[in-house]
């Protein structure tokens, strides 16, 4: 690492998630000498027998407990559902040492943060959605440039989608798409019901279809099409799913790109045209500093907020916070009870249901429908208010006909939605991020009303809602808005090109700038914005 601290890089990118990987690719391919700094925790547990499909492993695998429970039984989450509970043992490393290295205190906000290699991108659900022009403008993004960036990102990562009823909310105008995934038997049944009642459901401004996914259905370069092994929560066979490592591993082959893990960046400082980026080596605690002409922060909004506030030594100062309110419902597809379902499927969302309240793609809520597959019964049996033995019997019967409907709502800034950095904590950085996220009464009512509409449509589709689970604010894993875009050069805002106000050479390439957070999955737009920010950095240079 010593030699990296002595080099003046053209660009330093902090973070290895979807945003970090996209902006690093753009600047590196343009010829910049690029350093990616990352905490970079990896999964150090080997899982045997993970090249097989889920059904085969479940039927015959003798070492399943390591895969499904974890070598240290870390897959056994006891207690109420919260952010991170849903992570399989193979993904638990995503939240390794978070409490210690990214301390956060809150009574109302429980986000999923990660210091892992690939960040939260390692557990991304792969759903790809273009924001509409109205949504982009509300978010503070320039529609014309983001729309071009969407195509660039789509070409890089590979997306499968066949235009259907939800095209306006997913991939309008995007070319070179692969065919949609084949959905499972339950989802085919739901689609058939939708097509029978299509005009009635569409009159209520609901649209159902197969989501666009960053999952290959045809081979692309050295990556293979999905084999429908239903192991997507545990591994990435054939690299069929795009994860940030797919891009970063290719970048590592380039001579002008260096990846440095084991570093937690805490602050930056500008002196003339040089940005010094400081932090410490996680394994030793030693301080370390790197230098570059341009800094791109792409480490998720709360981590970026910590770095920025610390760098300006601004404590007890509130930054706004956006997070999609999220709940999910366990629904019973009663017509599928006792029926055989083919085990060949992906573990991703099978269907997406959009509610476009004014039919103008400006105020859209979204539900992702999943079969309860590739997860074991014990996770859901504990939620049933019966004795375990009878609950097991019940769920063994019901689970093949269970559909999980996860509903995301859009979000706007609010009085009780903020983060701030407080000094004086006894930890590595002597500070702690304080967060508050509460909805106003009008917002709660709007969400409840909208969810009732979703449940009505679920019933029309044959899905009977059994139980609603609210895992707490932050569980959506979609966050934005801490450094909102502004054309004024006010502190703690971003210029439209991503430059952090009051700095010359510091840019933010994650969702910190968004002034509005649509309900559609944010990751594809994050990546497009990251690519654009990197282009702006190149122009700025």
């Amino acid at each position: 690492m010593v030699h990296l601290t002595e080099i003046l890089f053209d660009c330093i990118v902090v973070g290895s998630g979807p945003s970090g990987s996209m902006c690093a690719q753009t600047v590196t391919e343009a010829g910049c000498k690029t350093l990616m700094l990352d905490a970079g925790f990896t999964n150090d547990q080997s899982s045997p027998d993970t090249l097989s499909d889920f059904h085969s492993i479940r039927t015959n695998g003798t070492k399943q407990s390591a895969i499904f429970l974890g070598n240290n039984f870390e897959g056994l989450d006891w207690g109420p559902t919260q952010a991170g509970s849903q992570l399989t043992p193979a993904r638990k490393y995503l939240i390794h040492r978070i409490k210690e290295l990214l301390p956060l205190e809150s009574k109302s906000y429980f986000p999923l943060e990660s210091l892992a290699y690939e960040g939260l991108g390692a557990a991304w659900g792969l759903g790809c959605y273009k924001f509409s022009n109205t949504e982009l403008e509300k978010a503070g993004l320039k529609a014309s440039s983001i729309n071009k960036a969407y195509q660039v990102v789509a070409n890089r990562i590979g997306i499968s989608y066949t235009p259907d009823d939800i095209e306006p909310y997913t991939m309008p105008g995007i070319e070179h798409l692969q065919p949609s995934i084949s959905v499972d038997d339950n989802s085919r049944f739901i689609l058939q019901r939708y097509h029978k009642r299509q005009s009635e459901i569409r009159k209520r401004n609901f649209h159902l279809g197969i989501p666009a996914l960053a999952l290959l259905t045809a081979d692309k370069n050295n990556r293979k099409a999905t084999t429908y092994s239903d192991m997507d929560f545990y591994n990435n066979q054939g690299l069929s799913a795009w994860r940030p490592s797919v891009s970063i591993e290719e970048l590592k082959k380039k001579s002008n790109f260096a990846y440095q893990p084991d570093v937690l960046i805490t602050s930056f400082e500008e002196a003339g045209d040089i940005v010094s980026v400081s932090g410490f080596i996680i394994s030793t605690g030693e301080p370390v500093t790197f230098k570059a002409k341009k800094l791109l922060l792409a480490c998720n909004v709360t981590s970026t907020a910590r770095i920025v506030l610390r760098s300006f030594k601004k404590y007890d100062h509130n930054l706004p916070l956006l997070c999609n309110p999220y709940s999910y419902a366990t629904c019973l597809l009663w017509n599928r009870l006792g029926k055989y379902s083919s085990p060949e499927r992906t573990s991703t969302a099978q269907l997406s249901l959009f509610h476009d309240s004014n039919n103008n793609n400006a105020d859209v809520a979204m539900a992702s429908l999943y079969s309860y597959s590739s997860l074991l019964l014990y996770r859901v049996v504990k939620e049933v208010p019966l004795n375990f033995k009878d609950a097991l019997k019940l769920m063994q019967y019901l689970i093949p006909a269970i559909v999980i409907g996860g509903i995301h709502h859009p979000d706007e800034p609010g009085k009780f939605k903020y983060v701030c950095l407080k000094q004086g904590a006894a930890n590595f950085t002597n500070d702690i991020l304080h967060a508050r996220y509460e909805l106003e009464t009008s917002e709660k009512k709007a969400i409840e009303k909208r969810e009732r509409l979703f449940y009505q449509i679920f019933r029309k589709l044959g899905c009977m809602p059994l139980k609603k689970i609210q895992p707490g604010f932050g569980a959506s894993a979609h966050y934005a808005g801490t450094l909102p875009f502004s054309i004024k050069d006010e502190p703690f805002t971003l210029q439209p090109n991503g430059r952090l106000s009051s700095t010359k050479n510091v840019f933010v390439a994650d969702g910190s700038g968004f002034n509005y957070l649509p309900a559609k999955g944010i990751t594809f737009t994050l990546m497009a914005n990251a690519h654009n920010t990197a282009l702006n950095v190149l122009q700025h240079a």
Partner: protein
Amino acid sequence: MSTNKEAYILSSYLTNRQPTPEVLMLYDQALKKLPVDSNSKEIKLWEFCIKHTWALKFVDAALGFTDPYHPVRKRIFIMLAILETQPAYNDCFLPQKRSFLYIFYVLFYMVNAVVKTVIGKVLLWFI
């Protein structure tokens, strides 16, 4: 108390079968990695269930309704998860093709489950 004894009781309760050596080993390991923190009252309840195994289903039922994250239930939960990963118990966990009439069998079981909850609640007053 030996974890093997607990494992036998819990496995029999959940599946009407004895635990395999693998299950015994995993349960022992799991309790070391995931200690079950209990106060004296909770320990007393657990010891009662071990001594009077007939009561376990009623206690589990009552707690499932009133205190689902009780330490007694945590032990059962751990055993349940371990059993699910063993092919020897697949018929208790993997989906089975069923006729439409099976729904009545399940409904009967659910009525049974509610009765157990009521009995369990009464039992808890006395333990």
